[in-house]
């Protein structure tokens, strides 16, 4: 057994500027090519413009970002749909894929509401965030957590993070957290909108 019952990420949305240092630090650490992106940053925007008779404009525009990797869910739908048992929940609650068993069918990628599993074109198998298990076991932080210039990311024991920071992850554009019970705790941006009740839109669909 690992040192943790269940690992979770903590994300302070009010600090995130969408710079994606987390995404690239992850790629740098794991040598991931373009197209294989274990941590992604959706941008969610909304509001309206009104142009007055004198040409002057008023608006109520807002935007926020969410840094998102695999949430190593309590109900990992990727594990559920995997026909080969390659996808599994293991030590420290980390969900990972066994490349020896994976047949590259991508059912996990289709099922996951967070787009966490990413296809590896070179090996024709799935790949995903492994919570930097190699670093965690040596007492190090995951690469993304250590990278965030705004210190908006942290990690820890899920129960402890929730006790300290609450249990919020049902924020647009993410699904309601009852779907897969993600191990993700978000401190919301002041403009954050509840899942399913958003008035905005996903602004960067091709970047995630």
């Amino acid at each position, binding site marked *: 057994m690992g040192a943790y019952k269940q690992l979770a990420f*903590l994300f*302070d949305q*009010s*600090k995130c*500027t969408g*710079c994606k*240092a987390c*995404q*690239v*630090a992850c*790629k740098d650490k794991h040598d991931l*090519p*373009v*197209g294989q992106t274990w941590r992604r*940053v959706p941008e969610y925007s*909304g509001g309206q413009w009104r142009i007055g008779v004198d040409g*002057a*404009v008023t608006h109520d*525009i807002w*935007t*926020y970002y969410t840094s998102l990797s695999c949430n190593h869910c309590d109900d990992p739908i990727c594990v559920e749909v995997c026909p080969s048992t390659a996808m599994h929940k293991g030590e420290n609650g980390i969900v990972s894929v066994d490349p020896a068993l994976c047949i*590259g*069918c*991508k059912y996990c990628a*289709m099922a996951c*509401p967070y*787009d966490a599993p990413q296809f590896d074109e070179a090996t*024709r198998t799935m790949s995903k965030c492994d919570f930097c298990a190699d670093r965690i076991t040596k*007492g190090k*932080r995951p690469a993304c957590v*250590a*990278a*965030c*210039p*705004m*210190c908006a990311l*942290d990690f820890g024991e899920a129960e402890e993070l929730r006790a*300290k920071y*609450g249990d*919020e992850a*049902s924020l647009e*554009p*993410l*699904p*309601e957290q*009852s*779907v897969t019970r993600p191990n993700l705790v978000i*401190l*919301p941006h002041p403009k*954050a*909108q*509840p*899942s*399913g009740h*958003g008035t905005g839109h996903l*602004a960067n*669909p*091709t*970047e*995630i």
Partner: protein
Amino acid sequence: MTSTSEPDTLSLTPSRRKFLAWSGAIGAAGMVGLPGCTLQYSDPADAPLGGAEEGERIVWNACLVNCGSRCPVRMAVRDGRVIRIEPDNTGDDDLGNQQIRACVRGRSIRQRMYSPERLKKPLKRVGKRGEGKWEEISWDEATTIVADKIKELISKYGNESIYHNYGTGVIGAAVARSWPPGNTAVARLMNCVGGFLNHYNDYSAGNIEAAVDFHYGAWMGNNSNDDTVNSKLVVMFGNNPHETRMSGGGEMFVTQKAKQLSGHKVIVVDPRFSDTAMNLADEWVAIRPGTDLAFVAGMAHVMISEGLHDQEFLDKYCSGFDEEHLPENAPPGSSYRSYIEGKGEDGIEKTPEWAAKITGVPANDIRRLAREIAMTKPCNINQGWGIQRHSNGESQARAPMLLSNLIGQVGIPGGGNGEREGANPLPLVLFPTLENPVRPTISFYMWTKAITDGKGMTYRDGVRDSLDTNSNSNVVNDVVLGSNIKMIWNYGSNALINQHGDINHTIELLSDESKVEMIVVIDNQMTVSARYADIVLPDAMASGETIDLAWQSAATAGNLGYLIFCDKAHEPLYDSKPVYEMLTEIADKLGVREKFTEGRTQEDWVRWMLDETRKKIPDLPSFEELRAKGIYRQNVGPYISMAKFREDPVANPLETPSGKIEIYSSNLARMRDDWNYDQGSQWIDPLPVYRQTRELPGDALQLRYPLQCIGHHYKQRTHSSYGNSPWLKEAHPQLVWINKIDADARGIATNDQVRVFNDRGATELPAFVTERIAPGVVSVPQGAWYAPSASDGVDKGGCVNVLTSQQLNAYSKGNGQHSALVQVEKV
């Protein structure tokens, strides 16, 4: 195998849709307060190896590009190759000791080091200039060609025919730096043989640099951003640290932390809902580009008519606010108050309604903001430099200064003078570059003009005297440029083509090989500018392939000063050489090797600089200690700009003619009728007044090109540096920002390929249809690499400078690149 081929087809289904599809269930988003995280700032396992795994070593380095921040990147080296970047593992999240975590750019530095576009061998052009045909040559041949040409040109045209172009591809490194131009290794070499034609000011801030001298006497810098912990209100004009200076140690961190600590309100004035507006601002004022002056004038009208301005401050510290405080020779009606009240030359009262029509900001908002800004003190008014990169840029730059003067916030904690953030520098002794005896100095933006019309240019054209380049000292001078530019040193610079305005014009100019006879490009990537070189000299990466020092120059990390050791991860790749070594070879062929090197290697110079600096900073570690430790930090304290002047303006006068803040500049009044500029469309005004200059709202050209095109600084790149990194292009793709209202009118949806064009050129790139930019404005993020199509010559790289102008502004002789009217259509 059907089980694998079937899902392959399905994978075409955009997985992105699921973000929407799956977000159907009801959740409860509590808008809770935001407790600080109990973050770890280093890994317990870091010590003593600093994060190295078995078989690795970690060497300290820095990302050396021109964002204004400076980040350490710790390179994990295995088998002679950098395999991973580790972040700073010193410091914490206290202001003044913050951990300097590199941004997305620094984190991808391996893709610069190991880019397929790394220059590998010295190259000699064999086709036409820009055609891309090269012959690989030896270092001996390359350095001989360059040295011979220098000798020939000096004897034929004099040293001032050899120009050192602006370049910031290697910045903040003590020996290898490519900027400032007077302090580079290239400058040192040229100074060994009689000097070179230098330039003053720069692409970033060329208009404020010219204007601030007249307003405050010299560059002052604003209060450092950490000092905004003392502010109740912060007003940012186009300042966008969350995208420009986005280091975890830089102004992004400092501004956000200062706001957390103080709870001050932030207002961002910007045509674009920048990430600073998104995350730091309590209010975003969506203004039309180039009209900040009119916005300030409208607010000044409210303040003056309601008596909210600080009359006492204006009387004591300023010249020209009202008729009672004008210089003796100024005509009646030429005060700022007269301008606002409609008693000046134009007879127009600058009411909020007048300003609303120009700026697009509703009159009632202007009234409300004027009252709030005048009554919420201390108030820090600051600016980024986008607002001054306009055809009226000199006066635009003065708008936030003027606003801070009107409310008397200069020289006090929590206040500010309207410039961009400043800082206390560390007293570092850097690489000495000797004296340049050539006195005529041109503006950074004049070099294309000086290729054809340089000979005979005078101060009236913007030629300054290198003995003192302050604007006030060059209202009149006696230097004359004696030659057109015949050779260009282009070190670490993409300003030869990519970053200079009106690319198509520059290409035409450079294609005539009888004008500029030699272009030498020193770089480590085959940049757009390198394509137009005659000789390409492959530079070693100053990050990872040499030994150097990188420092936190002023104004970029609040009250944190630091020095980073740049160590060698491995030898220079391929046949590249550090700039110091290649210039030593050229110095040898010019017969000045000993003068150039003083017998020192680059490492010797680094040791010398540290020894000299240690005389001023006694606790600075030695060479060996710093190499092991990686970084030296010092809390340099907050910088309160113009504090002495505020304390006693008589004992500590400014360098303006009156010694005061010159809202009415008597020197500008002198220049108005004397200088050369386009008097039909440009003005030199003693007061910072709004003029509708080239390609601002209301220009008749809007009938054909209705949209204002700006080029914001983008997270993908620092200017054009990192512009070829696949990870960064994926994370932050090059897109033209366009408001939904303008996109709908043109049938454009996000990711549609569009053509952005005007009479100067055209570029094609995908659209980003967004709420986050004001209607009537588009932005093509600056710095993307120019990529003309072989078939129609249209740029497919999304490079904004095919659209921008080379026109010199009235007296800065600088750039108005954000004043560009365009049309956009679906391709």
